[in-house]
């Protein structure tokens, strides 16, 4: 098990470093970095002077080495616009993203698990059919559009919820629902199929035959045994939720890492882009790492491999 953990930890480091490397070279290949530091009407001499001053005239592998050495120490340089330090700026937006992602996760589990269980237990009933249809539909709705529709109804028409921004719990409601929708559909579908598998098992039939009450049968025997695959899926989906959070943040002007990353991409403010990619890659890799460990812990076959 320790071998496995160490191997996966090394992978986390490699993933983050490679992500930074790829984005670094993409940025360098996409245009002259000196131009970003200067107004568009700068003269050729000024550009050359700046190029030397900023070190962009040196070979790219030296620049790359220098960038990586600074980056692993947490120094991504300053924002080209606001001159703030890039990494602290990104980190300051992290709590808002976590708040959104975690509340959406909790909401989706609170809806999806009871829905999936009931759907499986009442298989082929009207309730089951409607729930299956909704999950199929839910996976086809793009989350940013759902966000717009919610804004239209609750902010523009009914005027009971804010259309964007942050500050109070009311601001969280619409982004949370938007981000949770896809997960609700996915988790419900998965809970249903896992429960169906378990409900077919012999020990459930035995329990049923010996007169165990339905609620106990479903809750205690069936759900408990379905929880392991469900938890694994949820852990694996956390990263996807993080990706979705970026778009949701933009729709609702939620002041998280995703919105900052988007604005920096728009402004070609590359120190912040690199710091943002670093943080997102790190979180995503760590989540995957935890999911893998969890999975290996539950399923010993993986550990041996």
């Amino acid at each position, binding site marked *: 098990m320790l071998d496995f953990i160490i191997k996966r930890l090394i*992978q986390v480091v*490699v*993933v983050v470093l*490679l*992500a930074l490397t790829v*984005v670094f070279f*993409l*940025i360098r290949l*996409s245009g002259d970095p000196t131009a970003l530091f200067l107004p568009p009407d700068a003269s050729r001499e000024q550009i050359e002077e700046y190029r030397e001053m900023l070190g962009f005239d040196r070979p790219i592998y030296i620049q790359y080495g220098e960038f990586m050495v600074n980056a692993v120490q947490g120094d991504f340089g300053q924002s080209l616009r606001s001159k703030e330090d890039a990494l602290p700026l990104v980190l300051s937006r992290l709590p808002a993203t976590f708040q959104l992602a975690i509340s959406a996760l909790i909401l989706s589990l609170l809806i999806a698990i009871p829905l999936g269980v009931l759907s499986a237990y009442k298989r082929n009933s009207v309730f089951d059919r409607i729930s299956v249809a909704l999950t*199929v*539909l839910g*996976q*086809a*709705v*793009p*989350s*940013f*559009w759902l966000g*717009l*529709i919610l*804004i*239209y109804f609750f*902010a*523009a028409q009914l005027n009971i919820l804010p*259309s964007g921004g942050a500050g109070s719990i009311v601001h969280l409601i619409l982004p949370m629902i938007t981000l949770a929708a*896809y*997960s609700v559909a*996915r988790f419900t579908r998965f809970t249903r*199929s896992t429960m169906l598998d378990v409900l077919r098992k012999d020990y459930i039939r035995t329990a049923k035959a010996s007169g165990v009450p339905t609620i106990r049968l479903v809750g205690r025997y069936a759900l408990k045994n379905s929880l392991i695959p469900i938890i694994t899926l949820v852990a694996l*989906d956390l*990263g*996807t*939720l*993080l*990706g*979705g959070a*970026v*778009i949701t943040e*933009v*729709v609702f002007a939620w002041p998280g890492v995703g919105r900052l990353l*988007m604005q920096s*991409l*728009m402004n070609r403010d590359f120190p912040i*882009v690199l710091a943002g*990619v670093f943080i*997102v*890659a790190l979180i*995503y*890799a760590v989540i*995957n790492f935890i999911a893998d460990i969890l999975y290996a812990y539950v399923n010993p076959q993986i550990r041996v491999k």
Partner: protein
Amino acid sequence: MTVDFPKVPHTTKIRNVRKNRQSAITTFFLNLMRSWTGIIGFIIILILLLISIFGQWIVPFDPLLADFSKKLLPPMTGGHLLGTDQLGRDIFSRIIMGAKISVIIGLSTVLIAGTFGTIVGIISGYFRGWVDVVLMRIVDVQLSFPFILLVLVINAIIGSGLRNIIISLAIGGWVIFARVIRSEVLALREQEFITACVATGVSKFGILFKHILPNLFTPIIILSSLQIGTYIIAEASVSFLGFGVQPPEPAWGNMLNEGKDYIFSSWWLITFPGIAIMITALGVNLFGDWLRDTLDTELKGE
């Protein structure tokens, strides 16, 4: 928006390569008739394809023609079925033309990502060794970054436009093909008919092209159909965020981006392009699920 990682299981069923063409098509429709979700998906895809081919002849208005005297007309007024946008352009015509963009992006991406990913998957799975280790490490690394973010960052850096969004999606998408095709090839290698080929002295490349490749047809088709929906939604998301396909080109994503500023006054601007995306994604997903269930005997009855 989130992206699904489709799990296509091993199809150990061996396709009969010399199957009568006529009967294959008949079987396809007979199978289709048994599933109403498959039929719905198939019909949606068919309509989408027809619209994207013949769209330019059926649009009632020029989708790019701005007319400020007719701006923000609600649906069903002045001959505009779905109303007009902030520049007075006909929304119905723009959605029709947007279908073509979505189809082009979905198909081109799946073609590029699928071809590249399949080649990598075959090399990895068939020749094994250090090449396999290196390639699969790359795949692992890329899979540990959120797909939509990867596409967004690449597209933002290399620049917007139709060609660049296809390149960005393909760079983000090939890994899934590589992973799935590799495991298919690994499973096929263990099959008895391959062992028989080796024993009778068929060359390595003969086995690869005559015996392995034809049997990869089914998983490639299933995976492609499931991925197209992902690509179309991802493109819409990226264009919605201001990258991807740029205005005045009528892509559904950037129509929603432009329309969101009028959300408090003109609901039709943000409603219809979204419905178009949803119906498209629904059709492709339903058809893909049906294909998987039909072609993949192992999953049947689930």
